[in-house]
């Protein structure tokens, strides 16, 4: 029976690949596209073009596979010139199912829904939007993958891209054409999209901006006139704020997003990292990590909210909304909610910039992606939707505007488009925020071990342990041991 399952997978992939080749072989635009400077597709093949904002983040794709394999696979990718729209088979009258993750901001969700519906009507496609709660996304995708049935186009977080890479089609072709269309992808999300053998398994759809929201009134009462620039400044400000009964909110509970927002960002700002650039050599046992945890132990004692151990994703929202903390890092959902429900508190609040540490200023942000699963039945329509509707300048402008700093575009196209950005000056940083995104595993790739470590809350627990009184040395030993276990389980 198991054998049968295996064979099933095989046939399925073989089938889609054949169809894929047939679809893309029709035109020979490939070389032309590759020649375009902005095409990241070309970039991944051998070396990075000088024009892109090159960081080490790009390295993993090149190192994750033997050189020969990389070259040959990306070679084929290159000659596949993309656009499924030209298969000749009309998509009119077909059915397209989308497993869609609506943004938390209602206006953004509405406009995206409209975008899908209008495109579907114009293209004559019967489009079904399916969704489940975010918490159940993993279960849904896993079952779809194992039964080889499900939506033709799926929304995914970075974690889902990593866990589902084996059942996602290589859409390097799309990443090239659309990448040009949107003015080039940002590096953070690109590290997630590009999987083994330099294949693009997902297209970045949105970066959820993470802001430091803080109470201007309370900071001023404590004698702190401006938002602190560094973690150490926050620590000093926090001392006074905690003494006044309103500490800083720093999530230490088992919350995938908010926990990472606070703790990974702090870790990176000290120059600490989980892995070296190869993605295999553990790098947690470092002086940087030691310094970071030593700082944090004091920071927690002096300036942080002590009930944060129990915070889930809503924990810091509730703490801020109810006036118990003076600052916390979150998506703009806190601010958006306050503008609606508690304008007084919204008035007293503002957003600060990403905090710097000895190693720089980095911010963890959740990211959303589009992927076309190997079990998709209507690949052409899925591709057509992305090209013709989702990644158009008009829609992206309207969508970004509706999100009001929530969903930020993972590409450069809108940087110069004023109409896309919030008019509220308190959200002005939205325009540049997405570029500071960093992805777990940095500077190495976002591997499945990195994803598993995130799901097991290892980094968060390392910080939480230190806050509970464990010595930084023991906390590092704990983390190293857990990462080693994950590596051995590969």
């Amino acid at each position, binding site marked *: 029976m198991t054998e049968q399952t295996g064979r099933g997978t095989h046939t399925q992939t073989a089938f889609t690949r054949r169809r894929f080749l047939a679809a893309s072989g029709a035109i020979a635009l490939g070389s032309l596209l590759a020649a375009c400077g902005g095409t990241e597709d070309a970039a991944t093949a051998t070396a990075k073009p000088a024009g892109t904002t090159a960081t080490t983040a790009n390295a993993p794709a090149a190192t994750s596979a033997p050189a020969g394999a990389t070259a040959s696979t990306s070679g084929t990718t290159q000659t596949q010139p993309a656009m499924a729209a030209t298969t000749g088979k009309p998509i009119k009258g077909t059915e397209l199912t989308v497993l869609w993750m609506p943004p938390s901001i209602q206006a953004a969700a509405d406009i995206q829904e409209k975008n899908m519906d209008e495109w579907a009507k114009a293209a004559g496609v019967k489009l079904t939007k399916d969704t489940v709660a975010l918490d159940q996304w993993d279960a849904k995708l896993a079952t779809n993958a194992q039964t080889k049935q499900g939506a033709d186009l799926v929304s995914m977080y970075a974690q889902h891209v990593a866990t*589902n890479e084996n059942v996602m089609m290589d859409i390097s072709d799309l990443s090239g054409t659309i990448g040009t269309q949107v003015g080039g992808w940002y590096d953070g999300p690109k590290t997630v999209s590009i999987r083994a053998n330099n294949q693009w398994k997902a297209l970045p759809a949105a970066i959820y901006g993470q802001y430091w929201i803080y109470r201007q009134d309370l900071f001023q009462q404590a004698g702190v006139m401006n938002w602190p620039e560094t973690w150490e400044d926050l620590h000093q400000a926090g001392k006074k704020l905690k003494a006044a009964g309103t500490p800083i909110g720093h999530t230490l509970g088992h919350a995938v997003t908010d926990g990472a927002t606070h703790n990974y960002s702090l870790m990176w700002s000290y120059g600490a990292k989980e892995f070296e650039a190869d993605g295999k050599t553990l790098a947690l046992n470092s002086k940087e990590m030691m310094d970071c945890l030593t700082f944090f132990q004091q920071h927690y004692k002096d300036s942080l909210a002590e009930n944060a151990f129990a915070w889930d994703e809503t924990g810091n929202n*509730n703490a801020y909304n*109810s006036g118990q903390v003076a600052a916390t890092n979150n998506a703009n959902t806190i601010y958006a909610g306050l503008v609606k429900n508690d304008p007084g508190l919204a008035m007293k609040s503002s957003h600060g910039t990403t905090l710097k540490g000895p190693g720089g200023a980095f911010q963890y942000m959740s990211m959303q992606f589009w992927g076309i699963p190997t079990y998709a039945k209507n690949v052409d329509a899925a591709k057509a939707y992305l090209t013709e509707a989702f990644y158009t300048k008009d829609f992206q402008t309207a969508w970004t505007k509706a999100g009001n700093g929530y969903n930020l575009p993972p590409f450069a196209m809108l940087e110069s488009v004023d109409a896309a950005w919030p008019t509220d000056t308190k959200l002005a940083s939205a325009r540049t925020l997405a570029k500071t995104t960093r992805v777990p595993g940095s500077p190495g790739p976002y591997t499945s071990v990195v994803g*598993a470590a995130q799901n097991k809350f290892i980094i968060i627990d390392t910080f939480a342990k230190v806050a509970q009184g464990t010595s930084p040395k023991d906390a590092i030993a704990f983390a190293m041991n857990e990462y080693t276990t994950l590596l051995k*389980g590969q």
Partner: protein
Amino acid sequence: MQLSSHIAGEDKPQKQRIDWHHLWGRDATQGYVMIAPAVILLVVLVAYPFALSIWLSMTTASIGNPGRFVGLNNFTNQLNSEIFRLAFRNTVWYTVVTTVIKLVLGFALALLLNQQFIGRKFVRAAILLPWIVPSVLSTMAWLWLLDSNLSSLNWLLRHLHIVEKNLPWLTDPNWAMGCIMAVNVWRGTPFLGITILAALQTIPAELYEAAALDGAGRITRLWRITLPLVLPVLTVVMIVSIIGTFSDIQIVYALTGGGPTNSTQVLATLSYQAGLRSGMLGQGAAISLYMFPVMLLLVIWQVWHVRRQGK
């Protein structure tokens, strides 16, 4: 007698009809026919997937990737993980404590509900509510009551001047485990109570009458009559409670996600986070299966016990 008629049937085929009748009359035949639907259902829909899961636990399978066979590596590998060891310990502790409390409270509840009192009908309906409401939703109500920022229980306790400072419901490792156990007991006790109550109903009143005539007191009657007679049911619900607690993911997942620092992490949540959520199906299966031998021993003991009771 059955045996002889069977042999007779083989000797004389012309008596086929009567032999069929006899064959049908045999315990064994009737038994097989009666268990057939259950067996077919479970073999097709559970045994096969289960076998597949056991296979998975011995491979490096991930989503869309059958992986390679690694023997017991996934199991031994977990032993190195502090999180796993904690989760294992927590699972045992959580299961044992809640089961004992639920059994005692459930039995007491059944005895209580067996009394005559005004409003009994209402109480019996109300009592089942915790168990009827989908745990996904009722756990959310608890989360909201125990929330680290907005706990209304804390509000109440402070305003009644029972406490000065907020209680660290889900923030402190020990309190968090206590809260999770309390919610589990809250949710699980009503069903145990009602099940045991049903068992109490089947005890013939004559037994009590006879015992009372012999001068047996309340306690003696409880100990000598009630307890032995409800014991088969009690052991079944105990096993069910153990299995249910062991594999229930909702309460822990919603209240703490296994935190703070894995102090409430149990195997079910760990297998979900480290296995399914991370796409590492093999690892996840191994974590889930870790308790299996313990459970199996329990069930074997249970089978033996019920068999003995039956004789």
